[in-house]
């Protein structure tokens, strides 16, 4: 209630004019940037690199999209990415949240060391770990195996997710656990039924991050999943762009970009509502 009152407050709105100006400029710039890609995807290569791009003298070239879709196996890549991302994201939460909870609440020997280890994992660039892994994986003949790829995605993102959720768990009051203990709830039950739901905003936010990270992840995918059947969109897009750079087909290249980016964009809009739900739900409970 108080929040609604505030936003209708005329005085506040006037105070916020500088904010509006900056935010709106930023937003317009973003639209222009992304809008340009849409325009380019309907143009010919010649038009893109000339003054006349927005005039569409030769009309809208929908065939760029058809070409991008046909010569590339965009649907296969898309389904692959979808599967990898969904499975990975759910698994990551199931693995990382218990760990984050335990690290944030319980004082035991090695707690801080484990936290430092996990944090250091964040600073280890993919290149560092990829090659020993690749040697190992090749010897085991597991290259181009979907489950291996999913396992890698999960393992790569668990440290960050744990670290992220740690801050959220830390900020929760201990009264909940005390109450649960009094009520006779087991520690594990307390976690799943009470603490876990309380960090919803954090979980939703970090899942969105993970989703996008895994969706756009291309380095590991390129090395471990190169065959078209298992390839995700990120590698597919990179290949398409490379190819089109060498063939000079810029219209087709931007069409590919749009095809690949549109689902993420739509998914993002859909998911961002969940963020807001989670956040306001947290506010109401508080």
């Amino acid at each position: 209630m108080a929040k609604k009152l505030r936003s209708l407050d005329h005085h506040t709105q006037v105070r916020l004019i500088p904010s509006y100006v900056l935010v709106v400029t930023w937003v317009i710039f973003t639209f222009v940037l992304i809008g340009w890609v849409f325009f380019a995807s309907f143009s010919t290569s010649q038009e893109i690199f000339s003054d006349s791009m927005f005039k569409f003298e030769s009309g809208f070239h929908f065939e760029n999209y058809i070409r991008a879709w046909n010569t590339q196996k965009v649907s296969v890549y898309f389904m692959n990415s979808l599967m990898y991302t969904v499975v990975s994201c759910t698994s990551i939460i199931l693995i990382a949240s218990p760990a984050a909870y335990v690290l944030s609440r319980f004082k035991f020997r090695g707690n801080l060391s484990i936290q430092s280890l996990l944090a250091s994992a964040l600073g280890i660039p993919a290149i560092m770990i990829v090659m020993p892994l690749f040697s190992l994986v090749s010897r085991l003949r597991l290259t181009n195996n979907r489950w291996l790829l999913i396992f890698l995605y999960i393992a790569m993102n668990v440290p960050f997710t744990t670290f992220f959720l740690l801050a959220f768990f830390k900020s929760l009051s201990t009264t909940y656990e005390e109450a649960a203990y009094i009520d006779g709830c087991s520690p594990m039950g307390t976690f799943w039924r009470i603490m876990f739901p309380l960090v919803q905003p954090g979980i939703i936010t970090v899942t969105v991050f993970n989703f996008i990270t895994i969706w756009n992840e291309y380095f590991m995918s390129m090395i471990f999943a190169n065959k078209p059947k298992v390839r995700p969109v990120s590698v597919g897009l990179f290949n398409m762009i490379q190819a089109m750079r060498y063939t000079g087909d810029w219209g087709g290249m931007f069409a590919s970009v749009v095809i690949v980016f549109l689902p993420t964009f739509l998914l993002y809009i859909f998911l961002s509502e969940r963020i807001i739900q989670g956040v306001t739900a947290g506010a109401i409970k508080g």
Partner: protein
Amino acid sequence: MKKKGMVVALLVLAVIVTPLFAGGSAEDAAGKKTVTYWSMWNEAEPQGLVMAEAAEAFEEETGIAVEIVFNGREIRKTLQPALDAGETIDIFDEDISRVNSTWGEYLLPLEEYVSKSYPTTGGESYSDAVSTALIDLARQAGGGTLKTAPYQPFAFVVMYNKDHFNKAGITETPKTWTEFENVCAKLVQAGITPITVDDAYMAAFFGYNMARLAGYERTLEMANNNEFNDPAVLEFGKIWSDFAKKGYISKKAASNIYPAGQIEEIAAGKVAMYLNGTWLPNEIKGNAPNFNWGAFAWPEMGPNGNGTEANNYGAQCFGINANSQVPDEAFQFIVYLTTGEWDSKLAKESLGVPMGKNSTWPKQTAEAKTIIDNTTTWMTWAAGMENLADVNAKIKENFSKLILGSLNAEQFYAAMNK
């Protein structure tokens, strides 16, 4: 509680749905041989498209399956680790120098294979049916033994716009530096920018100039030792800062990020010349379908250096993995791609040169053939200036500044010697 239920439901769904997508690592059909080819091309490039078709036709004709993994140029990074780790790779391809020197230890010698005849070689042995010059080059690159099968030859020369030259009233291509300067002056008068470059080719540009000013041997020395205390470097600085002031070289050359030089300046018809490879027409045919191409060798620049007989040329080539389980089948596919019907198709679609013995170069790059024929000193890529990352980066930074005028010739020389 609802959340947890949803999570579980999603996971279950995923587990159920997954087997539908599984089977990524398919087993070969019983008894069928498969050749795995790691290609330097991208799926959508003309070469990629033609090869995919050829692979299908090959399988129909011979029953041998060909699996092509289109790496694109990333193959330069992904191949060796894969080979070292024992991944099944039978054929791979790339630039002739790279395959022979960098990947030389993985190659299966091919002398035996090329002395045989195949269905598409019309009774002759393979090496007789294809371009002798290229086979010789490949043999040379392999240190005396033929270890690779070349295709798609190229030369690194000045590619130019004949329409521009006509418009400016230029009737002959320049062979000496004075002639080159005159050509530039005439082009500027006609309102055309003479030459440009972008960050992918600056090192080659510099290398060629050094070879013309100080000789190829000395250039290699400079490049490999990162030592530029040669008067030729100062000379380069003077020439090009002068040219920049006169507008002979596009100001944008200082800021062009590949492929801006070839697309925004050459294809767009603003610039007349580009020191580049004969692959250029194929790369920008989408942007400039009716370009009137011509080629000439980089002119001689002084008495201490090489003249137009020193050039960089080469080819892409196929190599067979020494550990391949199916070398015969692999070479069969290579023959299939480089002779007969598929050879012509590959060349036609990519504005390349067929391997067939008496084949002609496409008109866009025909003049480059004469240059190769007259080349007596073979230069490596960029005359060696890309061998060290430090050197390459230095050249790009300082040459750009020279063009912009933020460095004069003396400062350029000093910066190159830091």
